[in-house]
């Protein structure tokens, strides 16, 4: 099919869907990149933690009557605390061992969480009303307000996190601890605390992603595992541990996926993986990655 035969409304619509998916790819791969960058572990539970965030938001509305904006504030804090608890009680004990063990531990956590929520809620989704009604009417397309909000918010969060890690003093500690933890400790910086906070930050971002996803996708026990494999491919494409790579690859692949759905719908589900294979063939470290990771 020719790109010029497609009505502009369809192109804008798919671009919008692509950017929405890309927002979540970016948010999640950003959290993964931060955790990987400092702790050198792949957080397999990231998808489950995202799902947990969405369910906490849903439960707050259902049982406490606290709406979306409260959830946006509280859920990231709750999931971050949970993440710090996990780091302190379990991941900490695997420090210094082969990183494979941490991967298996977080994979086990993902199974446990998903199993528990499926036991309670089945495989069906819980609806969550959109907090923003209405939208913006352009001459050739209609943009729902909530979707515009998600894209904008995700972009702001991603760039703020990037600024935080790359431009602030705390971020400098993080990067220094990544390069040489022993040396940083001799300067009196508490690296173990830094590790805990970093894992908390990553999990908090996953929880935040979950809250933002709740009104768009249904709140579903499977929402995390469906997404996480794609996000892994995004992380590999962007370059493991590269924050700017995670953001760029996240939004970029969302758009690529949206356009593929327009031109070759059959390949929309696999285009991210095909891009990953191409990137691996020509640039094994990823688009923004360094050779040593």
């Amino acid at each position, binding site marked *: 099919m020719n790109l010029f035969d497609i009505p502009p409304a369809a192109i804008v619509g798919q671009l919008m869907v692509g950017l929405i998916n890309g927002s979540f790819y970016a948010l999640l791969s950003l959290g993964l990149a931060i955790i*990987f960058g400092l702790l*050198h*572990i*792949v957080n397999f539970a990231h998808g489950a933690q995202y799902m947990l965030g969405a369910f906490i938001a849903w439960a707050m509305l259902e049982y406490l009557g606290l709406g979306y904006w409260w959830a946006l504030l509280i859920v990231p804090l709750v999931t971050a605390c949970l993440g710090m608890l996990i780091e302190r009680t*379990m991941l900490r*004990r*695997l420090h210094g*061992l082969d*990183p*494979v*063990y941490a*991967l*298996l*531990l977080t*994979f*086990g*956590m*993902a*199974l*446990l*969480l*998903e*199993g*528990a929520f*499926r*036991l309670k809620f089945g495989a069906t989704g819980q609806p969550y009303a959109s907090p923003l009604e209405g939208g913006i009417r352009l001459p050739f397309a209609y943009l729902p307000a909530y979707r515009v909000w998600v894209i904008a918010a995700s972009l702001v969060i991603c760039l703020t996190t990037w600024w935080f890690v790359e431009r602030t003093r705390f971020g400098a500690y993080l990067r220094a601890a990544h390069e040489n933890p022993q040396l940083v400790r001799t300067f009196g910086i508490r690296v173990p605390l830094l590790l805990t906070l970093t894992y908390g930050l990553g999990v908090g971002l996953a929880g935040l992603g979950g809250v933002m996803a709740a009104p768009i996708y249904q709140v579903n026990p499977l929402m995390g*595992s469906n997404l996480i*494999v*794609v996000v*892994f*491919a995004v*992380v*590999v494409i962007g370059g*493991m541990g590269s924050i700017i790579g995670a953001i760029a690859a996240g939004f970029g692949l969302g758009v690529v996926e949206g356009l593929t759905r327009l031109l070759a719908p*059959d390949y929309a*589900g*696999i285009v991210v*993986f*095909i891009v*990953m*294979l191409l990137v*691996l*063939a020509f640039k*094994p*470290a990823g688009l923004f990655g360094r050779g040593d*990771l």
Partner: protein
Amino acid sequence: MPATRPLAIGLLLVAVLALVAAPFLAYPVFLMKLLCWALLAASLNLLVGHVGLLSFGHAMFFGSAAYVTAHAVKVWSLDPVLAVMAGSASAAFIGLVGGLLAIRRMGTAFSMITLAIAQLVYFIALRSPFTGGEDGIQDVPRGRLLGLLPLDSDLTMYYVVLVAVCFGFWLIYRTVHSPFGHVLAAIRDSEPRAISLGYRVNQYKLTAYVLSASLAGLAGALKALVFQIATLTDVSWTTSGEALLMVIVGGVNTLAGPLVGAIVVVAMQNYFASFAEVVLMLQGLVFIVVVLVFRRGVVGEWKAWRQRRQAQASGAAT
């Protein structure tokens, strides 16, 4: 070690006798499931334990071999032996292509890449017409072995599967104890050192990966004949996760570990067969407990216990 030799031979004899007698004591289909899963876990263990490559996508070999075998038997009416070989060969081919790309990255990236490639294979299986989509390939005939021996009886099938799985385990044992296997262990222990000694590390890793893929394929091909069905579950990431769980529970880098792991995991599946969610939770819990408390797995801990006892005994003698 002269002291362990008779014990090892004795244990092996007991194991062989038990496996030959087993179908008279337990349900043969359950045993065949156990054997297929044990072979899948053993093929994965070769990579995880002996080469230090954590492949997270072994379901793609298991599942695609199951599809190819089922298709070959059902549509092409191929002899089961040829069909199983075709299944295993297709898994080896996928292993070669995937391995060429995945081997370029080490450590955790390797795990993520293999998982993503496996997901690609899953989507292809979901969409392509020959796999039957959500239904899978059902009612696969078992056929006649080499045109002579009908495999319809579960007992006959069991002994065929037993021979094939034993062949797989023997191949793994020979590989691990060959000069090739020693180079693999050297790569696992220190890749830079192996490179500096002049070994082409990536070629060794790729060969091991393809070997592991074809053995996982053999397991999947047998599974398709045993259950007469090939489905999306066989290529899904949960299958990869279960294989990994068996390796970890049984004990990484032990020969008997995958079998022990398969017994634990398959028993768990069967016991809670009607509660998929409970199985998922239990598997997660087992992962967490094993990683935190006994990383050496059942067989590994047993070996360590025996070594400690021997050390004590020799300490007391001197």
